[in-house]
Each structure stands twice: as C-alpha cells, then as structure tokens.
C-alpha cells in the first residue's frame, strides 16, 4: 500500500507530525504524495456498510435530477451557470458514483471527489431549501468529506486543522496555559479603563460559561476583552473554562469524525465540570453548529442536546438588549445604511434569524436586508473551511461574486458579520473586488454604543 510520509490515511496525533506538515510549504510535497496514495477499497466498503444509512441511501436514489437545486447554489450562479456546478450533479458524480461502484474507485477518482467536496461546496445547506424532496446535499457532502478523510484525500490545511484539534483540542496551537495566561493578560490590560473587570476562570455555578474561537487568543485577544466588557456591563455572573474553551471544529470541516467527537467532548466536560447554567459561544458560526447542533450526536447524547442550554452570541446580545441589561445610547446608534450577513451555520442551520433582526432593530437606524436573507441567504463564499484552503483560492474568489452583488444591492457600506468565517470572506471580498465596504463583528460596535453606568466608569482624579 503506497502511503506518503505526509499524505496518508493516518490522522495527525503528534506535534512532530504536525510540524512536518507545517514545514511543507503550501503542501507541495503533500499533494505530490497524494497522487500516489492508494485507495483502500475494503476499508472504504466497510465504512460504507457501517455508516451509509437509509437516509443518505434514499436521498441518493430519489433524486430525479430535476435541477431545481441549481439556482440555489452560489457556485453555480457565480460560474455562469456551469452545469458541472449543479448540486445534484456534484453529489451524484462523487458520492453517488462511489456508492454505485461499491467503493471500487481509484486515486484519480478520490482526488476528483476531494476537489469537489471542498472546492465546489461549502456545506452551506442552501440547496435543501429548494429541493422538492428535501434532499440535503450539504449533509451528504459532509459525509463524503468523512470518506475522503478516512482515505487520506483531504486538503493540506484541513489535515493540519484536524491535527491541531487532536493535539491541542483547539484549531490552533494554543495550550491551556496559553489560554489562561491570555485571559489574565486581557483582564490586566483593561483594569484601568474598566475598574472591577475580571475574566473569571473556572468559576463554579456561574450563569454563563463562555467559549471562544482559538483565533481570538492566538491573534486578536481584544475580542475576549470586548466580551468581558459587555458581560461586565450587563452584570453577568460568567466564567471561562481553563480546558474545553474552544468551540470551533476544523475537524468537522475536515471530515475527521473521531476528531469531531474528541473536540465536543472537551467542551461538554467543561460544561459539566463547572456546572454553569448555560453556555454562550463567541461570534462564530461553525463553532455553534459543531458544538450545539451536530455535537450532541457525535458525542452520543441521546437527547440531541448539549449538557446545558447553549446560546449563540447573537442570542445573548438580543436578550441583554431586550431585558435592558445592556442599554444603547440612542445618539450612538448606527446612522448609516448597514446590512447583516446571515451565517449559514447559525441562521439557516439553527434558526436564529429573529435574534439577529432583533439586535439590528436596537442598534441601527437604517438596517437593510440583503436579498435573499435569513435562512435563504447565500453563503458568504468561504464557509466549510474554504477560506483557509490555498488549493481552491481561485474557486473561492470566483464564488465571492454572489455575496459582493448582494451587499452592493443593499447600498450599505457597513456589514455586520458575527461569524469568523463570514467576516474573513467579506474581508477577502473587499480585497479582491474593492467595493469600498467595511465589516465588523458585533462586539466592537456594541462597545462604542452601550451606556456605561456611572459606578462602572473609571475614576480619574
């Protein structure tokens, strides 16, 4: 069996292996080795027998190729309605074919499947809304990614991401010590401006356990400070866990099912250990989907729910503004036209569109919806891990056109985007097309407009 030193069927479980992958610039050796990687058909057959259940089998069978999904796919629209971008074609020619051939496929087929599973689908699940049979092609692509991963056919960055989760229980190389130290640091940095502000670590029985995206402590810990300030102003009894603080899951994007399970179990263990009343996650879409929507099933929780009630940040903000825990200074509301990027992962796939509208009604005077919006909104163009994969940069940039046109049509120059992935895609969209827009998470916007109670203001002599 031909296995590469970097590209192989074994997930990354050690720092040494991770380092070896990271030093392979842009995955050059990795992708070269992939061309030689042999397909283990018996293993593929076995995994199909164990995991391809009636739902997916039915979906594959009942598709009548009506093509109603075509116009729902932003890739199809962005690529001049190329028939090869029709969702049903994309899944039938990959997963459908693989099942039909009973796993009897070659290296070339698997590489083609990989290029479609990651480069032509962001698992945004929009097409299911338009399928008369309710066939969820996004879910099937997630499944196909799992098959590809098991055979070692996975984009370089995704293999690294899955390895990060397995080693650090985080999508980046942040250890528990790094995390705890960053929290101390951010509390220390804000003590002058926000007297009494703390980032409580491992506090038992808090009302809220707050979890984040590893990129925040890694590159912009200000985000953590901003979350702390808003909890502080709202008078919340909150805490962060020293372990199990990371909510995201590149393992999910990679199709690393075992890694997915390990990751959410770390978060659930923190929930149970600290006995918080509820969990709030930072402004990240896929983190919410992974931990709150999909995670309970990965972890085998029969209830299908997280151990404690879980909220997306947008829900907490809506609640805080509704109940008056946070108050907006009316003079500071956003005056200019502003639009909102509905993240597929917590809007379409979790139904939180009302919370987003409620927040916008409190903070903006001229809120403009994208068309379509809510659960019908288009993917930002960078979901499903696509933003970070160099191999598909061209395809990703071409797909951004749809979001560009949606934003331009609103006339707004400011896009609120409470999702790391969407935020990135819109950032890149501006870099590619230069349409003169700004984009922001909610926290920095809120910090500038909330009323600070007199007793929480710094006392300067």
């Amino acid at each position, binding site marked *: 069996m031909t296995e590469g030193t970097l590209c192989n069927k074994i997930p990354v479980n050690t720092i040494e292996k991770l380092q070896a992958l990271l030093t392979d610039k842009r995955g050059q050796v990795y992708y070269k080795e992939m061309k030689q990687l042999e397909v283990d058909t018996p293993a593929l057959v076995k995994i199909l027998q164990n995991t391809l259940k009636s739902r997916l089998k039915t979906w594959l069978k009942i598709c009548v190729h009506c093509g109603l999904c075509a116009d729902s796919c932003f890739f199809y629209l962005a690529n001049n309605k190329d028939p090869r971008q029709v969702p049903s074609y994309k899944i039938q020619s990959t997963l459908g074919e693989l099942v039909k051939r009973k796993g009897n496929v070659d290296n070339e087929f698997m590489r083609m499947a990989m290029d479609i599973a990651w480069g032509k689908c962001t698992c945004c699940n929009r097409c299911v809304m338009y399928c008369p049979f309710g066939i969820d092609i996004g879910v099937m692509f997630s499944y196909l990614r799992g098959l590809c991963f098991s055979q070692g056919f996975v984009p370089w960055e995704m293999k690294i991401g899955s390895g990060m989760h397995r080693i650090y229980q985080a999508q980046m190389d942040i250890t528990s010590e790094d995390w705890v130290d960053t929290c101390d640091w951010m509390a220390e940095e804000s003590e002058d401006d926000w007297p009494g502000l703390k980032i409580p670590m491992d506090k038992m029985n808090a009302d809220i356990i707050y979890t984040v995206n590893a*990129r925040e402590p890694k590159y912009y810990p200000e985000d953590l400070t901003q979350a702390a300030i808003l909890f502080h102003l709202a008078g919340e009894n909150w805490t962060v866990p020293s372990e199990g603080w990371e909510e995201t899951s590149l393992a999910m994007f990679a199709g690393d099912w075992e890694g997915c399970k390990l990751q959410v179990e770390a978060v659930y263990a923190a929930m149970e250990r600290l006995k918080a009343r509820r969990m709030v996650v930072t402004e990240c879409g896929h983190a919410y989907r992974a931990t709150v929507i999909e995670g309970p099933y990965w972890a085998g929780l029969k209830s299908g729910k997280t151990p404690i009630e879980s909220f997306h940040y947008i829900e907490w903000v809506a609640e805080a503004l509704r109940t008056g825990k946070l108050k907006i200074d009316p003079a500071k509301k956003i005056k200019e036209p502003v639009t909102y990027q509905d993240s597929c992962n917590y809007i379409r796939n979790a139904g939180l569109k009302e919370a987003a509208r409620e927040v916008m009604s409190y903070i903006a005077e001229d809120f403009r919806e994208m068309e379509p919006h809510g659960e019908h909104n288009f993917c930002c163009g960078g979901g499903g891990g696509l*933003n970070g994969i160099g191999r598909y940069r061209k395809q990703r940039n071409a797909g951004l056109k749809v979001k560009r046109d949606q934003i331009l049509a609103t006339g707004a120059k400011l896009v609120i985007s409470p999702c790391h992935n969407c935020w990135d895609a819109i950032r890149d969209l501006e870099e590619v097309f230069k349409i003169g827009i700004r984009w922001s998470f909610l926290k920095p916007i809120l910090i500038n407009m909330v009323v600070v109670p007199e007793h929480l203001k710094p006392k300067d002599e």
Partner: protein
Amino acid sequence: MGTKILLASTASPACDDAARVAFDLAKRYNANLTILHVIGIPVRGFSNTVIDIRTGEEVVCDDDYIEWVKEELRSIYSIQIEQYKNCIMESVPGVPHREILRFARKNNTDLIVMGTGAKKECIETAGYTRYVSGSTMQAVAKAARCPVLIIGRPAASFWGGISKIVFGTDFSKAADSAFMFALNIARKIGCRLYIFHAINILPFDSEKIQLQDEIEDKIKAAKEKIRKKYVTRMKDFKNYNIDVWEGVPYVEIVKFARENYSDLIVMAHHARDSDLNKTRLGSTIEQVVLRASCPVISVNHPDKIGDL
C-alpha cells in the same frame, strides 16, 4: 545589568532613527537588545497565510520564512550589530501592536523603542483596524507596562546627551507614573526637569470662548496643583521649572519643548479607545510624536519606572 530593551522594527528605513536610538541606549546600559519584527497580519481564515507588513503581499508564514526574515533583519542592522553584539532577532506573525505587547510582557521588557513608521495602509487593507484605534504606536503606548520610547522624527540629540526633560501632565493617574519616571531620569542624569501643563482653550471643549481672566485663573490653579502633586514628591531635587500655557495641548507642548531646547518629552498616553474614536486627530501623544523634534516617551504604569 540585565536591562531588556525591545526595538519594535518595521524592518524599513522608517525605523532607522528608532534603531539608532535603541542601539545607542543598549550600548550605554549594556542591555539585552531584541529586535522584533512582526511579519504580517494573518489572513485566509485559519491558514498560516499572512499579509506581509512591508510589501502587502501574501506569504506562507512557516519556520523557513521566519528564519529568512530574521536573516534579513540581521543584514539590515549589520553595521549596528557589528558594534553591539548583545542583540537577538525575533520575528512572529500577527497583528503588530498585539505581538509587540505580547513579547514585552512575556520577556519582562524594560523599555520598548519604536518608530511611527508602521505602514498603516497595509494594516487597513488587511481589515484589522477594528482592533486598533489609530496606529500601532498608540496601541502599544497605551497598554505596555513599561515605558515606550517613540522616535517620530530624526532626533537632534540622544539619550545621555540629555540636559532638559519636559514632563507634560494632564494630572491623571497614569501621569503620576510618567512623572516618577521623568524625575528618576532627571535625578540620574542630573538634568533639568520642566513640569508642563497646557490649558485647553478650544471652544468645543468648553461651552463658550473663555475670558482671559478665566484662563489666567486656571493657569494659577494648575501651577498650584503641580506644586502640590509633584513638587512635594521631589524632596531635595531642585533642578526644575513649572510652566503652564494655554492653547491646544499638543501644539503647546511641542512649542514648549522646542523653545526650551528639550531633549526628551515624557508623558502618559491613556486615552480610552472609545474617546479616541471621537477625535479626528487621535490622541495628544500621537500628534506630539509626529511634531516634536525630540523623542517622546510614554509611561502609563508604575511597573518599570525605576529600571532604567
């Protein structure tokens, strides 16, 4: 002995003056000098791709690249390194102010030296301005626990050749630390300390145009405050002046420093980010740094004021 100086460098000619001062200082104190260059701003999601601060180009930031950048740094500063060998090169990806602060905190740095030349356009293209109000310099000066020496324009004179220090105060708590630092230096070097305050007379800061009598009363009160707040803490140190002028604070302090041939301005930069958003010009310190003909040092915290 064991003094740690950090030169935050953009690895471009914009930092030449800052580099000269940093090496000069390191030599004088036999300090451990670290030259830190923040390579670029992470982009493309979770990948290890960054936008190079200098070129604005997309690069893969792996160990090889970091080594290469360090080598570049060594060649840029080769002349200085030849004369002063106790220095190391460091290079990391990230948002510049954040990584400078992270490094200083981790290594217990005693003094940060930086220019004002960070390419703001590049940082803006990368879309990270939301984290920073104003420049990298402002963000570092605000949050650093140690003094931050900012070299805005080619300085006429350098450390050691200092004979006059201007301490500009707004009477804040942070200014207390700046004062103690200025006093320590003045004592050590034996130079004159000018304690200076500017009464802001801009109409939008006060309700109406102020009468001259009012301004003069304020000047009198400010002088009294200086005596109470600072002079009482100077004990036997007599080599000082007290001056209070009226005008636009950053203009007045720059004028005052120029007229007195000052070699160093010491002040605290502690404006809140949300306040900075309101002013078009940014903070007083930013304007002072850009305009003053001598170096400016920002001190906000008491942690490191006795260590130099």
